């Protein structure tokens, strides 16, 4: 069968070439194709929330900073991209940025201080309504000092501004294009200064990127990059096996053994900053009691879940921030101790356990429904009777954002790689994205201090204290740190998969 295809394709190609009269003068474009699980949602950085969108945004736009993955320390490190130099005043309130001069957007306009000011103010403007406003909220004023120099003043000391400028949401957009187009339209017709520009977008089918002729940085190998959404995991595997794509994201763990037996495919196991937990609803009894939260954390055998349900595509968490997150502190695994869990529950006044509701989305996080059922069984062992409700993702996102939700626990993943944004957004009492309702004045104060201090050692110490508190009084039922499985055709090199689950093909090439 395989042989048949070989000669048929050869004949077809020859016939095609002769019919079209194409000579050998025009070489075929060099193409790299990536299969993702979901479609790109928007290419407007100020609104992009999902990884496939971020992956494409990373090729079309440039940011002031970008994430670099240090394979030695296994940490993400924000490094300058558009920035040439950056200076912070001793009080942490005034930042001066110098840009690389002479960079141009794909529409020919310069990437200057005015464009950067426009892009940052675009996220801050209430009229635009970007959900990422909190990322830059402390910014009070942005002044253009020279064509390549600008000064940012914050209302309070905000030493994390630098690392937060590596977020995909802060990518620099062409003011001309973004200002001319209606808001929704810009997400479909993006203009940035990255090595690629959007050539074609067929929703649900593919996003095609072509070379940006204005790009003056290091020239990538591929003339064309194609991102294809293939929701069905098995179909993604087949596309990779058939050579329809060079890279397939989110390979299911069950398929790994079979794929590793093939000579033409390679599997990458990427530890990610994605930590999956059942978040406790602190606004509901009995989850306001620290003993109950601790008991439930002791009731689950995470090793069994990682090995048996995830089939190894994960690791047991050793702290509230997985490897790769800035200022991470490794603390050690929770032990599996149902006896102690029962004792703690009895001490908290629940010797007979209690009933609660577990919410989970369907097939958002690999094996979410299976994990939920395993947790349900572990909780039943210590007397906690949990009823599962399975949600469709779109409805789930708005349901968990409601403070009066009836869920006792709900499954959610956090992937933010920088400490400030990761902790502030989820654990600061008044943060609008603190869905669990966690409230701890000490954590609030430590987070504020860490945000303010410009001394690196002090900052590290403050975040270490935050992580210790979160580990001794767990706000969530922490479950596992996700390992991303990516399939790559043999011979394709230079594909970079970041621990935030985005793919970068700037240095990639196929044979």
């Amino acid at each position, binding site marked *: 069968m395989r042989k048949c295809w070989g000669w048929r394709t050869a004949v077809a190609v020859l016939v095609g070439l002769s019919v079209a009269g194409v000579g050998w003068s025009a070489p075929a474009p060099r193409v790299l194709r990536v299969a993702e699980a979901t479609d790109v949602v928007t290419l407007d950085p100020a609104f992009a929330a999902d990884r496939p969108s971020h992956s494409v945004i990373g090729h079309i736009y440039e940011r002031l900073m970008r994430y670099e993955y240090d394979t030695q320390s296994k940490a993400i490190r924000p490094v300058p991209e558009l920035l040439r130099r950056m200076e912070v005043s001793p009080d942490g309130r005034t930042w001066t940025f110098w840009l690389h001069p002479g960079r141009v957007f794909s529409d020919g306009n310069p990437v200057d201080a005015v464009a950067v000011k426009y892009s940052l103010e675009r996220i801050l403007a209430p009229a635009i309504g970007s959900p990422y406003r909190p990322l830059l909220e402390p910014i009070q004023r942005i002044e253009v000092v020279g064509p390549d120099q600008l000064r940012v003043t914050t209302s309070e000391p905000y030493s994390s501004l630098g690392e937060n400028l590596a977020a995909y949401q802060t990518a620099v957009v062409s003011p001309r294009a973004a200002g001319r187009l209606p808001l929704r339209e810009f997400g479909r017709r993006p203009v940035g200064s990255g090595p690629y520009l959007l050539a074609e977008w067929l929703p649900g089918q593919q996003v095609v990127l072509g070379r940006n002729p204005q790009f003056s940085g290091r020239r990538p190998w591929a003339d064309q990059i194609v991102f294809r959404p293939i929701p069905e995991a*098995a179909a993604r595997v087949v596309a990779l096996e058939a050579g329809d794509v060079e890279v397939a994201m989110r390979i299911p763990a*069950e398929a790994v053994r079979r794929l590793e037996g093939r000579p033409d495919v390679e599997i990458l196991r990427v530890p990610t900053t994605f930590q999956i937990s059942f978040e406790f609803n602190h606004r509901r009894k009995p989850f306001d009691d620290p003993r109950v939260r601790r008991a439930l954390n002791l009731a689950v*055998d995470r090793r069994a879940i990682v090995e*048996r*349900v995830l089939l190894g595509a994960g690791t047991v968490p050793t702290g509230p921030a997985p490897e790769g997150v800035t200022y991470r502190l490794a603390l050690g695994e929770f032990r599996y101790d149902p006896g102690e869990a029962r004792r703690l529950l009895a001490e908290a006044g629940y010797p007979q356990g209690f009933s609660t509701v577990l919410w989970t989305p369907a097939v958002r996080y690999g094996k979410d429904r*299976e994990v939920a059922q*395993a947790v349900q069984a572990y909780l039943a062992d210590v007397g906690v009777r949990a009823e599962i409700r*399975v949600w469709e993702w779109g409805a789930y996102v708005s349901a968990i954002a409601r403070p009066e939700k009836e869920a006792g626990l709900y499954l959610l993943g956090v992937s933010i790689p920088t400490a400030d944004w990761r902790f502030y957004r989820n654990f600061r009492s008044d943060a609008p994205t603190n869905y669990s309702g966690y409230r701890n004045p000490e954590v609030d104060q430590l987070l504020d201090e860490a945000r303010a201090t410009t001394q690196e050692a002090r900052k590290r110490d403050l975040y270490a204290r935050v992580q210790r508190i979160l580990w001794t009084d767990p706000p969530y039922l922490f479950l596992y740190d996700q390992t991303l499985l990516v399939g790559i055709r043999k011979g394709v090199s230079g594909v970079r998969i970041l621990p935030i689950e985005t793919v970068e093909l700037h240095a990639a090439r196929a044979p």
Partner: protein
Amino acid sequence: MVFLYLGIAALVPLFVPYEEAVRVDLARALEPPGGREWLGRDELGRSLGARLMWGARSTLTVVIAGVGAGGLVGVTLGMASGLHHGGPADAAITALVDALLALPRLLVALLVVGLVGQSFEALIGAVAFSSFPSFARLARGATLAVQQREFVVAAVALGATRGRILIRHILPNVLDVLLPYASLSLSTAVLVVAALGFLGLGPPPPAPEWGSMLSTARSYLWEHPHLLVVPASAVALLAVSLSLLSDQFAGKHSQGKAVWIRPAKTGKPAGRRGLTDA
């Protein structure tokens, strides 16, 4: 075959406790068939055999209750509509039934579950709601046809009450027609229930349900095909058995009263009104 399924569904609580079907044992996840667990264990180490049998109970309960309720409502509406042939009630019922029949059955069921929420009862409601229109349509046709038969005319002439005619003369004949259809309807309901479960709209986990078993088994297709093959065969076998049963019903009745196999086509003679209206 159908009786084997019914037997399993009815008797499973006696020899396999429900606990067997939902007890998670991660250490034994994905155990192959054979040995002590004759069908092996699923991705969470639950006994596949126990889940299959309890799934049969759940599926059969849903389809029998659902089609039963749908049939009851459908026959009542259909006969009422047939008796008041030409009246406003008939027009209203016919319009409703036609509108619902225009939609695929699965879509109607999806809508019901979507509106009511996910539960065992919602599933029964979905099956009932999606099956009653065809029952109503068939019952109406049969009623129209039977009304004009000699024995009904004779009963009217003898001064029998309307209720007596309805119950003693018309209903049995209508049911004759509907019995084979009911069995066929059960067969499609099995598929509807499995489809809903597959789409994640069945009873909430960990309840054993064939459709949701299929949906999770899908990703293990290459490495552990039995996880998929076993529930898939159960669904297919039950659906086929039920439609064979329907053939048998139809065959039995056609020997005596050949006219009534497809009453919808013989119903509603042009230009004549039903007797009860006269």
